[in-house]
């Protein structure tokens, strides 16, 4: 490092380190300097020296499979993809007006949304630090727009607080913080924290609590202009004769605690949920479509894999054309398998016993999304809500307002449910019609005057009943990670698994892509050794 003169910019320095020490050294240096700690993406994989004619069969055309096919083709491999569905993209998917969707059990929905409106059944938001996905979105020409993740003006609703009346996030969160600040201030002033704090620290902390919690001069959180500056006003500041604001009244702290608003506050602190977030213009499915444009000629659709076998000569995958019923076998030197584990677990194979056990050890989560189309944007026009989520402790979990085409006339789609856990089990067990009815009933707590009046039509996707995944995402826990994760991601002779299930960024597209890059990098090494 001494050779680097003092006039060198940080970027030049990092480039120099990268040239000398390779990507790992660069990454370590960047991390030390406060850069790049948010991602494990170091650019597209460098797969040099592929043997001429070497072939790879990719199973599944979700993002992991398509990225593997794209990068391996670029590296010189002969690549083919087998896909169960007539559509590429996997869980990256949007439903539009006219689409027909049949779930397990046979219930069929014809989506009735107006042109341009959509429901994203799976992924719907992209964190700013999901650098792999953002890289390929740019490379493949996917236009992105902001996803409005955090809306102070949206609501929190608890059946157990405030008589079931929803409150603005802004007011409940401000009242929670204000009361916590007041209580902590009391503890400081009653010398309860003397063992932990120096006199100087105590002064600083009291100042912090006064500012953060908008406390009055006596360190109390009370109704007034100070607390209203966070929680909103009874009459907001204006101009002229009645310009003076009228403060709002703080909520009872017991009610604030009953609302459990800290769950929602903490949610926004989660690294994956932090702003800025993005969505593709025109629906999340645009990403799958853009990936498919790169690899479409390689994909065989309607191919249901029935057997995976490998031996010293290569990999043989038996599959059935779901349209014609014709059985075929595809052969290749190597295989990247992105089939969801719950499905893969039921496919006959001769993978190593340890890998088979790992595949069978990871269950899948459930999740339900419901799109409700309304005739007008009453949430914008009547409630000044522009994107963001209103949370509830009912089964629907939340409703989320559209982030695009703001201020326009005409119909728009609200996400009428994003349920998980018990709420999702209950909604999944219903018919599509019952789900819509339940979503309307529960969502009406936020917009009682308009929700049913302005409703036009709706569609739902319950992931436990999605025919090609039988679930939403792989559910790891500490035990299964410890026991099976490394086995699951290891190259098993000629086969390697990839997908969100083979990552620590589970249930995100970024996890699928990072897993894919890692898998094909190691498979390439294996191929070079062959």
């Amino acid at each position: 490092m001494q050779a680097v003169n003092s006039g060198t910019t940080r970027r030049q320095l990092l480039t120099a380190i990268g040239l000398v020490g390779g990507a790992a050294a660069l990454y370590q240096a960047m991390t030390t300097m406060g850069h790049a700690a948010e991602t494990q993406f170091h650019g597209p994989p460098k797969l040099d020296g592929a043997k001429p004619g070497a072939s790879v069969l990719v199973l599944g055309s979700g993002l992991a499979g398509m990225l593997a096919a794209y990068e391996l083709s670029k590296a010189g491999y002969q690549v083919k993809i087998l896909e169960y569905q007539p559509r590429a993209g996997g869980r990256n998917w949007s439903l539009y007006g006219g689409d027909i969707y049949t779930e397990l059990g046979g219930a069929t929905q014809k989506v009735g949304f107006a042109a341009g409106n959509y429901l994203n059944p799976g992924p719907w938001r992209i964190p700013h630090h999901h650098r792999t996905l953002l890289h390929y979105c740019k490379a493949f020409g996917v236009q992105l727009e902001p996803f409005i993740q955090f809306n102070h003006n949206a609501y929190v609703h608890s059946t157990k607080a405030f008589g079931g009346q929803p409150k603005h996030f802004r007011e409940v969160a401000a009242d929670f913080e204000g009361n916590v600040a007041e209580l902590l201030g009391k503890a400081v002033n009653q010398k309860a924290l003397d063992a932990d704090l120096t006199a100087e620290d105590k002064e600083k902390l009291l100042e912090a609590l006064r500012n953060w919690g908008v406390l009055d001069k006596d360190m109390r959180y009370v109704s007034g202009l100070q607390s209203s500056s966070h929680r909103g006003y009874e009459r907001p500041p204006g101009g002229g004769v009645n310009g003076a604001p009228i403060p709002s009244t703080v909520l009872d702290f017991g009610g604030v605690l009953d609302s459990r608003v800290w769950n929602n506050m903490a949610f926004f602190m989660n690294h994956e949920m932090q702003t800025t977030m993005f969505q593709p213009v025109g629906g999340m499915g645009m990403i799958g479509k853009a990936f498919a444009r790169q690899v479409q000629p390689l994909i065989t659709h309607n191919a249901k894999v029935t057997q995976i076998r490998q031996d010293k000569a290569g990999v043989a995958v038996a599959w059935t054309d779901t349209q014609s019923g014709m059985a075929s076998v595809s052969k290749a030197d190597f295989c990247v398998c992105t089939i969801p584990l719950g499905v893969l677990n039921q496919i006959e194979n001769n993978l190593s016993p340890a890998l088979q056990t790992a595949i069978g050890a990871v269950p899948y989560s459930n999740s339900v999304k419901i799109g409700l189309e309304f005739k007008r944007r009453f949430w914008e026009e009547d409630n000044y809500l522009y994107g963001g989520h209103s949370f509830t402790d009912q089964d629907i979990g939340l409703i989320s307002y559209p982030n695009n085409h703001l201020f326009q006339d005409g119909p728009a789609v609200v996400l009428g449910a994003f349920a998980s856990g018990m709420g999702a089990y209950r909604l999944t067990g219903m018919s599509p019609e019952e789900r819509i009815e339940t979503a309307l009933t529960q969502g009406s707590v936020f917009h009682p005057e308009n929700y049913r009046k302005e409703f036009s039509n709706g569609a739902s996707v319950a992931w436990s009943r999605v025919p090609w995944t039988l679930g939403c995402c792989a559910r790891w826990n500490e035990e299964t990670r410890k026991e099976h994760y490394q086995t699951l991601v290891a190259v098993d002779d000629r086969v390697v698994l990839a997908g969100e299930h083979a990552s620590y960024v589970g249930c995100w597209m970024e996890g699928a892509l990072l897993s894919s890059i890692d898998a094909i990098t190691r498979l390439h090494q294996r191929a070079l050794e062959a």
Partner: protein
Amino acid sequence: MKPHLIAAALLILAPFTASADEPGTVTTLHKPPVTGEEVYQQICQSCHMANGMGGKGAAIIPALAGNPHLANADYIIITVAKGRGAMPWFDDILAPTQIADVATYVRTHFGNKYAKPVTEAEVKAIAGAKTSP
């Protein structure tokens, strides 16, 4: 509410900690399932369907109707408590008595005629310590 159902309800109120793309909300159990039939309707039928016929797509959700595995009470207890393949474990949200009741329900419906009830004691003995109280 029976104490064990309160315990089961509280477990579902565990705070949001996962990093997956989840709603960020916590569902309150307004009407926790009490009978075996209620457990079936609120959880099991999401995959195994209201008629117990399961489903068939890229893979199979097994039918419970006429399923020979159900002759063995241990099999269904272990499956519900610990999961099997894509099916998650439910011993984090169901108490042993709920698992026993839904096992009994499934074994006596959808054309199944295994009259001997599954008991809470059997669930505790077979599913072990991880099962919620």
